[in-house]
């Protein structure tokens, strides 16, 4: 299996984790020089074709070479310090690395007044810059003349108080100096986890502070997964239902769309397919330079299957969308904001026709969903007769065909979306989700999943209140009396969601080192991030009452059945 991240490919985005633990984003182009701040620079070709997740070290320049070479640091070397520490069974604050004096371990060289030895501690530590014998100037010169490892060794050797330090503080000191002087970085692939970490550190509001664990939780409750069927199975009344179509409202700059696309297997370009496409493009380019002007006729457009996965056209600027395994994106502006998707090779302004998102992403604006007749793109372009078309100049003619292609794509997307039958609804919005739901919930199939993310709890609290049991009861009693419920009291039909739940999750990181295991001292505050999950259901007509002897106020609808079930369960167990 040639996976996308098996090695570093040219013209892709990737991350370098610098010694300071900061992620650096870069696009790796062949034949260029990569500058990594104070670590130095190296030719990109030294990284291309190499594996991800390894740590690379920029080596000292050799005589006669213009650029430094890279070295893969073996994992054993990276873990060496801790493994060596681990090897000694004692996890006390002893100093296994230092040789013992007179058969007595140096660890016990601090003797208290009554003559008993105590474990070394930081009682006598002196915090003073003068304890480092090397001056800043000397260190700078050392850095120029020798590699990182030697610099660190010399610095440690010239620290007067190093022996007074406890092993832990010595380890900390060494680590700090290592981070400062070792010219190392780790290469990480462009995937969802790394993007979240990167954006979170730089501009968290751009992704609504959506953490990895929250995104994972949303994908699980949204039941987002790949669907392999090519066709939407027709129902009796000819409507399209299900088949891996998700409706999304994303205000996280494309992060949510990327997370879903990853789960659906449409986030990454199929490597083999891309290479094949490149080859065929070359052939096309040499054989038919005028291919760009060949157009399908009007008739061909009309006869083309409206939801075919691949339309037989040489143009792929406005392809007809795929029919299954798709993301339908509702966007509040004229164009969708999917700026993060460009790191995954899909730029909405300049879409890559090889990318699966080109056909599997169906964007439409709220105007197109609610008032398509007001939208210019949805309006059918004026019909032009063949005779008239022939009089057009080639530029005008190609503009005409482009308009037609854009219109047919837009029409296909809008009509399909308005028909509904989606497998699920996933929302991450700054706008009030309570105004999104009345328009979108009816478009979800029965049994479909609904997931709403909000960085603060308030919008979700309001939604839960709109779907509360008491409100639903009141709504049903309105219906059973034949009244139309007031849209102010009932902005949504409270019967359409089953068991809405609001939850929140947070992963707390720990440090695990021999004898020093504890939760990390600081982490990110800010928005906690809440997820609402529910199932879309189809209510029966008229009023429904729960059953059971749970009379009186406050009975829960489901209690009736639960009583029945627990009895049955007891029987089965008996």
């Amino acid at each position: 299996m040639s996976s996308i991240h098996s090695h570093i490919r040219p013209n892709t985005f990737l991350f370098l984790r610098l010694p300071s633990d900061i992620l650096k984003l870069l696009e790796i182009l062949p034949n260029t020089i990569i500058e990594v701040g104070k670590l130095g620079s190296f030719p990109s070709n030294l990284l291309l074709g190499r594996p991800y997740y390894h740590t690379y070290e920029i080596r000292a320049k050799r005589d006669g070479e213009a650029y430094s070479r890279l070295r893969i640091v073996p994992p054993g070397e990276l873990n060496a310090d801790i493994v060596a520490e681990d090897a000694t069974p004692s996890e006390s604050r002893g100093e296994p690395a230092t040789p013992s004096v007179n058969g007595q371990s140096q660890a016990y060289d601090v003797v208290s007044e009554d003559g008993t030895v105590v474990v070394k501690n930081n009682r006598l530590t002196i915090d003073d810059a003068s304890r480092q014998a090397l001056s800043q100037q000397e260190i700078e010169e050392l850095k120029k003349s020798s590699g990182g490892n030697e610099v660190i060794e010399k610095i440690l050797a010239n620290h007067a108080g190093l022996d007074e330090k406890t092993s832990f503080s010595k380890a900390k000191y060494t680590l700090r100096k290592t981070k400062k002087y070792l010219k190392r970085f780790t290469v990480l692939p462009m995937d969802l986890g790394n993007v979240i970490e990167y954006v979170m550190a730089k501009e968290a509001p751009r992704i609504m502070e959506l953490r990895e664990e929250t995104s994972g939780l949303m994908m699980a409750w949204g039941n987002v997964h790949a669907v392999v069927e090519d066709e939407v199975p027709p129902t009796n009344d000819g409507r399209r239902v299900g088949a891996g179509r998700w409706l999304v409202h994303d205000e996280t700059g494309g992060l949510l769309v990327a997370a879903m696309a990853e789960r659906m297997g449409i986030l990454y370009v199929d490597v083999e397919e891309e290479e094949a496409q490149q080859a065929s493009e070359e052939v096309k380019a040499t054989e038919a330079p005028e291919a760009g002007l060949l157009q399908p006729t009007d008739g061909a457009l009309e006869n083309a299957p409206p939801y075919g996965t691949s339309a037989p056209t040489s143009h792929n600027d406005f392809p007809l969308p795929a029919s299954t395994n798709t993301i339908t994106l509702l966007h509040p502006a004229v164009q969708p904001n999917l700026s993060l998707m460009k790191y995954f090779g899909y730029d909405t302004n300049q879409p890559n026709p090889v990318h699966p998102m080109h056909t599997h992403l169906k964007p439409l604006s709220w105007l197109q969903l609610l008032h398509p007749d007001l939208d210019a793109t949805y309006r059918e372009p004026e019909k032009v007769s063949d005779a008239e078309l022939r009089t057009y100049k080639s530029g005008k003619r190609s503009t005409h065909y482009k308009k037609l292609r854009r219109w047919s794509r837009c029409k296909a997307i809008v009509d399909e979306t308005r028909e509904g039958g989606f497998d699920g609804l996933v929302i991450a919005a700054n706008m009030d989700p309570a105004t999104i739901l009345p328009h979108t919930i009816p478009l979800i199939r029965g049994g479909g999943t609904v997931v709403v993310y909000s960085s603060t709890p308030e919008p979700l609290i309001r939604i839960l209140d709109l779907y509360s049991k008491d409100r639903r009861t009141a709504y049903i009693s309105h219906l059973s009396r034949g009244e139309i419920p007031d849209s102010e009291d009932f902005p949504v039909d409270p019967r359409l969601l089953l068991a809405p739940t609001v939850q929140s999750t947070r992963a707390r990181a720990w440090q695990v080192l021999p004898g020093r295991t504890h939760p990390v001292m600081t982490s990110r505050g800010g928005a906690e991030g809440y997820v609402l999950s529910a199932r879309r259901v189809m209510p029966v007509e008229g009023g429904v009452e729960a059953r059971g002897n749970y009379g009186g106020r406050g009975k829960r609808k489901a209690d009736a059945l639960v009583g029945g079930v627990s009895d049955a369960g007891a029987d089965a167990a008996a």
Partner: protein
Amino acid sequence: MVSTFLSPGTVTKEHDLASLHLRRDQSLPVILSTRADDAEHEGYAEGVVTNTRFGAPWGSQIRASKVDTGSRGRNSQKPKKRKAETLENQENEDGTFTKDAVVASSGFVHVVPPTPENWTTSLPHRTQVVYTPDYSYILHRIRARPGSRLIEAGSGSGSFTHAAARAVFDGYPQEAPTENDESLRQDSESTGKVFSFEYHAERHRKVQDEMAEHGLETIVRATHRDVYQAGFLLEDEISHEKTSPQANAIFLDLPAPWEALPHLTRGTLEGRPSALDPQSAVHICTFSPCIEQVQRTVTALRSYDWLDIEMVEVQHQRIDIRRDYSGLQYEGLRGVNLFAADVDQAVSKLREVERRAKDFHAGKLDRDKTAKGANQSADTNSKLPFDGGKLIHRTEPELKTHTSYLVFAVLPREWTEEDEAAEQAKWSKHVKIASSGPKSQRQLKKEAKQRVKGVNGVKDEPKVTSEEAAVAINDAPAE
């Protein structure tokens, strides 16, 4: 066979697994059927709903129907079991005689397609269950995507197995899984697979049965094995030939993960191939409840050259959202807090008490009593308003404060001197690469024009950003 987990179809069909939603956190997995085969469905402790008619759209609310329990013979000991009737009146497919269900006056249930989430809340517990907040994060972190090859040990109650199967699913393999797995890998396009190992014979059998019942048997390959001893290689049933699962994601829910790690290395062990995918990095997660287990696991991971070792715990809470009815005006109603809502209310109550005391001493008691009684009866008749009170939220009373510690690590691809030499030869000089990204309209037009004009060498010639980029580094002697 397709699975209702992954491809539920548009309507419910016979033999489909469905989830009957009773209340939150309580759903009933059932195989829809016209007959009651209780013996086969022991796994579903709650029993089976029979005589369901098919063809209801998923998500339908279904009314309960009256059941003549007396004449049902052996089922008569379950008097509370109800038939469910769908909205549509369809004929039974096989034409067997089923009594017309009569709609009961009350009671209902929702029938929804099963998902790993509702399966997790309703599954028969065999071991500690990996719940949704944990498994959703784990699957994200170990990069389980469509096409991934995932090792799970042990299978346990199967909640992670279902979620993992959904995550790696990229198509139903064409061949039966009993065939040699290696050939399957070559022939079919789908590569996503879960290799689930369990050393407890009974639990293994249950997981295997469940997978077959849920239509996931082509995606999940369950093996009965003690992985500490025998490792993770797949064994052909006939030839006993050992093949590698070529895993790139691993989840170890074992008491001693460090004992399984020697079988998860890059090198060949005693002539047997590595269980890992040689072409990609491998992500691992271990799931241990105790900190001591974590320490030993991390030590072992370090010595087996795993990198980016990180330990986290997932803290999850559900939010209870309700209306809080505090205030003296709700006196006499159930589920209210009888505290004064504000100072004014408290003062007016105190004044009322003061006035009554005064009246009492003045001997005007009778009139007061009647007034109070009338007031109260009016209150009890009214219901709490659905938009009254105060909307509040708080953590739900039952809180799982600790499930397990999750240790994550990654094992990069092995990189040999030969690999490096090959890549160096490929990339050492100035390289021509056709840009894989899309070209702008302007660029395309320009190129087309130049091609027509017959300008040579313009196509795909990358701009040389700097002459130095083309350092002939491969000429320098290798170490």
